[in-house]
């Protein structure tokens, strides 16, 4: 397997050397994706707004959109993605063992994961923050009113530890009940086994839809942590990691530059802005530098849309989650999103 990859990489490198007089670092992952003709993307088991399969088996969500954009950039076709639903526990072994090319599934970026799991985080596609969902009749408005409460969580999530730490620091006693799957935890909350369920506000907005009567539940606005999330790759294969990172940057840059799926053809043909021209592959040959075609970001934006379009469609105002942009807004508009320049 390895020898074949290596041979393929050498071959690819030699060909590109001949064609462009530019030698690329071998990237077994990119070669494997191109050889098999589809991207293997690890997503959430089912979280509306982020990654959720509808009744026709079609995946949708902001994390799924990222996978589609990556497939469009690498293969030129956003539909060429195979989604692997992963639980909180399964996600690391599935990524580490190479069953998926990357994870794009509500995974919080933490130090210890980066340092000891052999995974790299390639940027932030959603600034999540942990909070609680409670029943309206309980009359809770702030997390520190929850002394004595029972809280359902998914075992092994960052939320489990964070909630424990947060209440311990404030000398409040809570009972944490940890389930193997988010869905079991939320079902137990719905059955009134717990007073609250904790997760990020975005995940809670998605999960609230699945409750028996969503309107009887309220998501607290005070956040007890910040949980930035983004696409995750395993160690090694820096060129693939760069592709993953820059496709995400490209989607955010496109919003900042005003490039949308609707005007991308016009922009490509007429724009005089140098950064837009480099982004869309009109000049600079950026795609080739990564071993992709030069219209990599054109394909991604054309087929999936820029970050803002994707946000509105999946978790924003035109979705059932109705999340405001909040921190997930461009830095020029008061949010936290920015990208390094396409230079």
């Amino acid at each position, binding site marked *: 397997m390895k020898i074949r990859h290596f041979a393929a990489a050498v071959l690819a490198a030699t060909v590109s050397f001949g064609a462009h007089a530019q030698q690329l670092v071998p990237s077994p992952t990119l070669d494997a994706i191109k050889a098999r003709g589809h991207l293997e993307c690890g997503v959430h088991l089912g979280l509306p707004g982020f990654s959720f399969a509808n009744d026709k088996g079609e995946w949708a969500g902001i994390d799924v959109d990222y996978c589609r954009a990556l497939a469009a950039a690498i293969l030129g076709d956003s539909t060429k993605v195979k989604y692997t639903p992963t639980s909180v526990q399964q996600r690391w072994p599935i990524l580490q063992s190479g069953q998926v090319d990357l994870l794009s599934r509500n995974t919080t970026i933490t130090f210890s994961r980066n340092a000891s799991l*052999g995974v790299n985080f390639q940027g932030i596609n959603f600034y999540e923050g942990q909070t609680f969902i409670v029943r309206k009749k309980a009359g809770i408005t702030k997390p520190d009113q929850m002394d004595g409460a029972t809280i359902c969580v998914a075992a*092994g999530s960052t939320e489990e530890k964070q909630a424990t730490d947060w209440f*311990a620091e404030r000398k409040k006693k809570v009972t944490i*009940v940890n389930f193997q799957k988010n869905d079991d935890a939320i079902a*137990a909350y719905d059955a009134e086994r717990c007073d609250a369920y904790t997760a990020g506000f975005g995940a809670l907005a998605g999960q609230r839809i699945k409750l028996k009567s969503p309107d009887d539940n309220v998501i607290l606005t005070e956040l007890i942590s910040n949980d930035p999330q983004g696409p995750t790759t395993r*160690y090694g294969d820096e060129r693939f990691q760069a592709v993953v990172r820059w496709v995400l940057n490209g989607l955010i840059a496109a919003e900042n530059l005003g490039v949308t799926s609707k005007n991308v053809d016009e922009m490509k043909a007429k724009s005089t802005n140098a950064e837009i021209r480099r982004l869309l592959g009109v000049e600079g040959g950026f795609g080739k530098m990564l071993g992709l075609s030069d219209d990599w970001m054109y394909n991604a934006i054309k087929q999936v849309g820029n970050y803002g379009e994707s946000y509105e469609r999946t978790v924003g105002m035109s979705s059932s989650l109705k999340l405001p942009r909040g921190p997930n807004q461009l830095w020029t508009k008061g949010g936290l999103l920015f990208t390094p320049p396409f230079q």
Partner: protein
Amino acid sequence: MDEGRPALHAALPISRATAILRRFLYDARVRDWLAQLAVAGAIFLLLWFFVENASENMVKAGIASGFDFLWRTSGIDVPFRLFEYGPQDRNIDLLYVGIANTVLVSVLAMVFATVLGFAVGVARLSRNWLLSTFAGIYVEFVRNIPLLLFVFFWYFGVVRALPPPRASLDLGGIFFLNNRGLSIPTPEHAGPFGYVLAAFVLGFAAFLALRLWGAGRQAATGRPFPVVPAGLALVVALPGLAALAAGLSTPWNVPVLTGFNFRGGFALIPEFVALLFALVTYTAGFVAEIVRGGILAVSRGQTEAAASLGLRPGQILRLVVIPQAMRVMVPPMTSQYLNVLKNSSFGAAIAFPEIVSVFMGSALNNTGQAIEIIAIVLGIYLAVGLVVSAFMNWYNARIALVTR
């Protein structure tokens, strides 16, 4: 021809050595040894290759390895534990909590499943049509449904059926039943309860002595002594009185509704109850069949012979049939007990903090050390399983037919 002779002579000592070697190699015992050595060596090499390969690949992939994580702070809270433990304790303490919970639920399930299974198994052989039909339906129902469904059925059945804390079922003002569990009062001091244990041991010893004396009297005079009621009085009433005295002498920590839930006392969580009920009802179906098979394996002649000696049906069952049936029942019962131990891992599905849930769930995700953690959990199941097997083998040897 002549030239060849000296060479043949020179070769003779070698061929003698070969002959010895050949005899050695053709020895069946030696061959067995060599074959076993080769297989053991191959297995060792294979394992060595796996370990070496895994550790090399983990280093390459940048994944942490080793057992240092056991001594790091766990940061995980557990809602149900038999001893003091908190999130500031180490991962190894979390492991102990998991082991204790696994063993607790397994042992209780083994005991109750045996009792229920015995009852159902005997009921299925009953001449009462209604009783045997119901027992038959129960067995078929239980054996043909996956355990996971049982666990969910009991869990959501138990939780959904119970009221929230504010509307708790109040049992005498000291026990409270709600969907957070059963809150029971606990004594402030455990000291006086040592006497309860002492009373139990004393009562049990007296019961054994009484039984011996009763058997002796029956053998001598033919008059039976009511050992069972006298024994019950000794084993139950004596510790009961001691418990009452101990309970009155110490203050109690009675659960009180404050805020969201009851504080104080001990809460028996619904996850525990649901898992225990699921394991008991499920395993009892299999135990019932083993009991039925064991009883049917005892020849009918035994029952008839016992009846002709004048024993009553209850006595026949207790003194003649069951002791013989036990010999057939014990080996398959061992398998069932081991199944109970392994099936207790279904607790992970409903958040009962047993070893798979707390260690392979929470701890694994916090440390990411999958290989070490899974190896530890495998080792623990193996160790507990071997202890159960050893006990059952000892029991099996004890009740085996004594041959002379």
